[in-house]
């Protein structure tokens, strides 16, 4: 149930979509043999891509109680029967979120975000409008559980100033709240390690726990990134460029993993 919005192309490259760069960047965050809690959309695409390339032994768990499915058709949600297909285990929340996530065996979990602040705190609950009016959205579902308990958290989201504010309107899922360490916060999980947007890959400073720029996607200018970020961003002296997906990665993404472009649109 983690929210990840459809993300229209942002980069200037004629024949590669930002979503494809994001999926490849997400896949590179996963190591072979790890246990992953997958959300729908790009997180699932990234996980399948990793599994089809460098990490064939990934264990992919879905909150509802599905392990290692091999969907034949693209599902619209985590409760969509399409994502139950060819699973190796069907159980439930208690097993996946309790006996795996809460047990501490989940290496990485993906989160989407309506808002993410400079300390990696995530809001998926509500939005405050100019008028002060509140609009409720989906809430936590497994998001807060993953943020609290996974060894590391990877956030995939669209890069917009309003979505990356100084402070989130509602703190659904804790990162490094107030720049404090996870130990200080009494949280077992390691917290956010990466934020993958349609403009850049962001990380967190080991000391300050604040967001810092790791790499800019090809064709994205630094000014553009800064303009579109609502909080001060630590910028390194020389800025690497996010690697493009390889030809094989692009082939897998376009021909096998999401041929209809449901998530890579």
């Amino acid at each position: 149930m983690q929210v990840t919005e459809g993300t229209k192309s942002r980069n200037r490259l004629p024949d590669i979509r930002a979503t494809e760069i994001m999926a490849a960047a997400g896949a590179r965050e996963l190591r072979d043999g790890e246990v992953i809690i997958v959300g729908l959309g790009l997180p699932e695409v990234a996980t399948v891509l990793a599994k089809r390339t460098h990490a064939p032994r990934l264990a992919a768990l879905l909150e509802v109680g599905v392990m290692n499915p091999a969907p034949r058709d693209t599902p619209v949600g985590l409760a969509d029967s399409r994502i139950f297909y060819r699973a190796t285990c069907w159980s439930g929340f208690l097993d996946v979120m309790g006996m795996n996530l809460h047990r501490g065996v989940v290496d990485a979990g993906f989160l989407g975000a309506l808002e993410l602040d400079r300390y990696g705190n995530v809001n998926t609950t509500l939005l405050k409008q100019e008028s002060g009016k509140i609009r409720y959205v989906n809430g936590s579902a497994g998001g807060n559980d993953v943020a609290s308990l996974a060894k590391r958290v990877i956030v995939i989201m669209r890069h917009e100033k309003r979505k990356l504010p100084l402070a989130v309107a509602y703190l659904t899922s804790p990162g490094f709240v107030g720049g404090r360490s996870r130990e200080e916060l009494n949280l077992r999980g390691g917290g956010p390690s990466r934020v993958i947007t349609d403009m850049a890959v962001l990380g967190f400073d080991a000391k300050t726990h604040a967001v810092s720029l790791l790499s800019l996607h090809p064709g994205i200018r630094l000014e553009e990134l800064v303009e579109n970020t609502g909080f001060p961003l630590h910028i390194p002296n020389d800025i690497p460029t996010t690697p493009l997906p390889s030809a094989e990665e692009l082939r897998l993404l376009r021909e096998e993993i999401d041929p209809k472009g449901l998530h890579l649109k």
Partner: protein
Amino acid sequence: MVDKVKSVSEVVHTIPSGSHIALGGFAIARNLIAVVHELIRQQKRDLTVSQGVVGLDTDLLVGAGLVRHLIMGGGSLDRFGPAHCVNRARETKSLHCEDYTSLSVCFRYLAGALGLSFIPIKSLLASEILERLEAGPGAENVKRSKCPFTGEEYVLLRALTPDVSFVHVQIADREGNCQINGPRWENEEQAKAGRRLVVVAEEIVPTEYIQRSPERTIIPGHRVEAVIHQPFGALPTAVFGCYDYDADHLRLYVEHAKEPERFKEYLKAFVFGCRDHWEYLEKLGGLRRMEELRADPILGY
């Protein structure tokens, strides 16, 4: 042999307004649509509803103005849209919502199912979810505490024991032995936490069928008060192995749910305008549409 098969209206007649009911649906899967429609027709009011991840069933009840208190871990109608009625009711403060997470609702049910009055959890800490709970009526259900052995900080959760738990299953016998096909989210804990338990089954099988694979019995018959036999009882949501969700109707629902006035039209047409679930199924397209939605035996959808 005890025959517990009852009609949905018989069962709903036994549920007083003000009850706490737990619904076993998840987003757009195995929702208690037949039950919720009947609760609306019989205008059961001031309900407390709990659900791990809310779906169309809870959204309908809230939209119909029958829910006073909602205990949930979040939720939406997946890609079809948000739970408009739930979100709007929160915005207009016509509903008190106790926000949790998928696991914390599951743990509250687990405690209830095990007869424990409390259970610890490591989620919620350092979140606004916990702060809001502590600041509101939820305060009586959460308490920060330390492990007596390790000193580690926990949130203690109060057990959740709904007055009536409803679960939609693929298969049951007349005594109430139930087998669920596909993932089960928090259904086992939610079902066994209930003071009363009612199941809606797509298919009624002889007990001998249950005895052929007793390891698949998720809910044993002696815990079940009533079995409602209602094929396509979860439409427009999906039941794995039986039928796919009705995407057209889900879009139509979301369109109407966006606006209070249009939602009234929806209720008029599809709930109040139907004597029972069979009439509703006719409005969805009847036999021909049901056959289109019927699941492929290999794919399950």
